[in-house]
């Protein structure tokens, strides 16, 4: 859970104080979680047959965007932004689907590892360019989004390829209880295994520091360039996971980037990460993605005209973020 922690406070001695402090620090995420629960209850109300199978479907469909949102959250916390996440997802997805097609399960493991390394490399290229050229992040990554999308098309002009069976099965079904979708577990394991150690290490602290005040971080001895690079590398790695999740859930690789980049920005904001950097965590954005998806599902249930649904989603996005800010402001005042 502490992945979402806005601040790295040490635990207080009194446990009650610790809980209160935790709640205060993660108020946004907790509020969003509450909203999600209300939304789930509403969904059950309008569609009584909504059950474990639907929850599994929900988990599978949010997986790519959730990973993309985590990728975006990391770089945004570090004071940057990455507009090439969708293209990196397309690139890693076509590479994995092309390499795995018709190969053995074992080779599939090699491919997955190789694609994760590719993600690290893409992130390193983005980060190095941002650091070395001193051109604003938004411009570099916008330009690189063309580059990675072009590379994806060079690997494979049309959707196709294949995925190892174990990879496809990884995100299907449930684990333990039928209410715990395997895709959700996979998501939490990936995020936990990578972000928690980073967060607790010097690099994580430094990422928050450069996002909060780059000059102060520099003066405090933080290697600013190297830390920005690290943030982009972590983002590249999560983008590769997101690309692999596309391959896993569709069984093919698609070279044209989906709508993930900007949706990830939206989810990150919805998840309480400040676009100014230095504040927020990765749990909030994940909850944000689930909320966005569930809203879409509900509109399908309610047979809302698809075009109206697009309009409504935009309005809801503003509404939620606005209510969230108001609540935070009130809280700050009270």
């Amino acid at each position, binding site marked *: 859970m502490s992945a979402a922690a806005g601040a790295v406070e040490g635990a207080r001695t009194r446990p009650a104080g610790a809980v209160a402090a935790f709640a205060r620090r993660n108020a946004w995420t907790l509020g969003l979680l509450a909203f999600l629960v209300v939304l789930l209850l509403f969904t059950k109300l309008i569609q009584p047959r909504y059950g474990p199978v639907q929850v599994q479907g929900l988990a*599978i*469909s949010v997986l790519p965007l959730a990973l993309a949102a985590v990728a975006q959250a990391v770089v945004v916390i570090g004071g940057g932004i990455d507009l090439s996440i969708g293209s990196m997802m397309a690139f890693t997805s076509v590479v994995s689907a092309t390499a795995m097609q018709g190969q053995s399960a074992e080779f599939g493991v090699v491919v997955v590892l190789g694609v994760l390394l590719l993600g690290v490399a893409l992130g390193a290229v983005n980060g190095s360019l941002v650091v070395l050229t001193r051109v604003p992040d938004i411009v570099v990554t916008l330009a690189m989004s063309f580059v990675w999308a072009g590379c994806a098309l060079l690997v494979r002009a049309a959707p196709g390829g294949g995925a190892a069976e174990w990879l496809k099965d990884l995100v299907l079904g449930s684990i333990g209880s039928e209410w715990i979708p395997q895709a959700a577990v996979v998501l939490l394991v990936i995020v936990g295994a990578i972000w928690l150690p980073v967060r607790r290490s010097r690099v994580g602290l430094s990422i928050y520091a450069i996002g909060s005040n780059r000059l102060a971080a520099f003066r405090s001895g933080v290697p600013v360039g190297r830390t920005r690079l690290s943030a982009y590398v972590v983002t590249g790695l999560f983008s590769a996971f997101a690309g692999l999740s596309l391959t896993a859930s569709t069984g093919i690789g698609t070279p044209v980037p989906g709508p993930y980049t900007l949706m990830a920005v939206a989810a990150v904001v919805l998840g309480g990460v400040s676009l100014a950097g230095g504040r927020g965590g990765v749990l909030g954005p994940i909850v944000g993605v689930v909320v966005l998806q569930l809203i879409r599902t509900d509109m399908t249930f309610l047979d809302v005209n698809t075009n109206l649904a697009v309009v409504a989603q935009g309005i809801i996005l503003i509404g939620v973020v606005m209510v969230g800010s108001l609540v935070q402001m009130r809280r700050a005042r009270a």
Partner: protein
Amino acid sequence: SSGGSAAPSGKSFTIGYSNGGGVGNGFREEQVCTAKAQALASGQVSTLTTIHRNTDAAGQLSDIRDLIAKGVDAIVFNPNDPAALNPALEEANKAGIKTVSVDAYVTDPTTYNLYNNQIKYAELGAKWLFDQLGGSGTVYYMRGLAGHPADSDRDIGFKNVLKDYPNIKVVPTADGVFTGWDPATATQLINDFIASGQYDQINGIWSSGMGQQVVDGIKAANKPFVPIVDADLYGFVAQLLDPTGYPGLKGAAVTNTAAVGGAGVALALKLLNGEKVETDPSASQPNTVLLNPVLADNVTDAGKATLKSWQVPGLDPGWPLGLTIQGWTTYTPEQAIACKGPGDK
């Protein structure tokens, strides 16, 4: 224009090819590859300049103007809109450049149109599907790209047949939903449709080229299949012919050859060589060549045999199977798959 390669007829042309959308879409990619293959196989083309990107009508206008500025002899293009490109097409005509619209028509009177008869395409599939359901039931109507002429024609065909089946109900609305011919959108749509429980209430699916994603989505959700009709894409036909992987899947494929690209190049060469072109007077536009579709299903043995005969090993799942068109294209299927034009290494 000067040409390096020796052409049998002694002529060497430069041709421009514009595709204003569908990058990463199997149908459009194959279309470009057949154009390249035909240009190579004809021996009469020195360069085929391809502009293949996702853009809007204004963007394609500028691409066509770039090709005019380059001084090509003919422009073959898949139009983003029937009327929007006309100003550039007039400019081409004034510059003595032959123009051929493939896969859909344009209203410019000097341009030749060559496309699959999409009204008939939709009629064949809809009739098969409604008959499968015994003339009554609910059908999920998944369309392609809103506003694309091929999609509009298919809608006409679908509704023509629907008139004769009063007991068929169409969901989610009479105008269906649009996948935009984008696999990701199609996957999203079917997942939402299943998650909302609406899938459990339908009896069939009429799909416009995204059948593979739909079938995969149903399989992933562990739902029983309903009869589905789609285009002759490799991936979808492979699913129809794989009863172990997709138990209970009943479906039919309607041909919608992407070799219109190659045929378009062949048509352009005919025009450049001053040959006569047979046109179809029944079409809505003058100067139009219509290609007629056929249907095969996996319900009858004859149908299965036909489907098997279409198979081309090694093709991408998103590619249509009809790689060549009798009487128009002169390349081999291998050349189409190789996707090399004149001068390509």
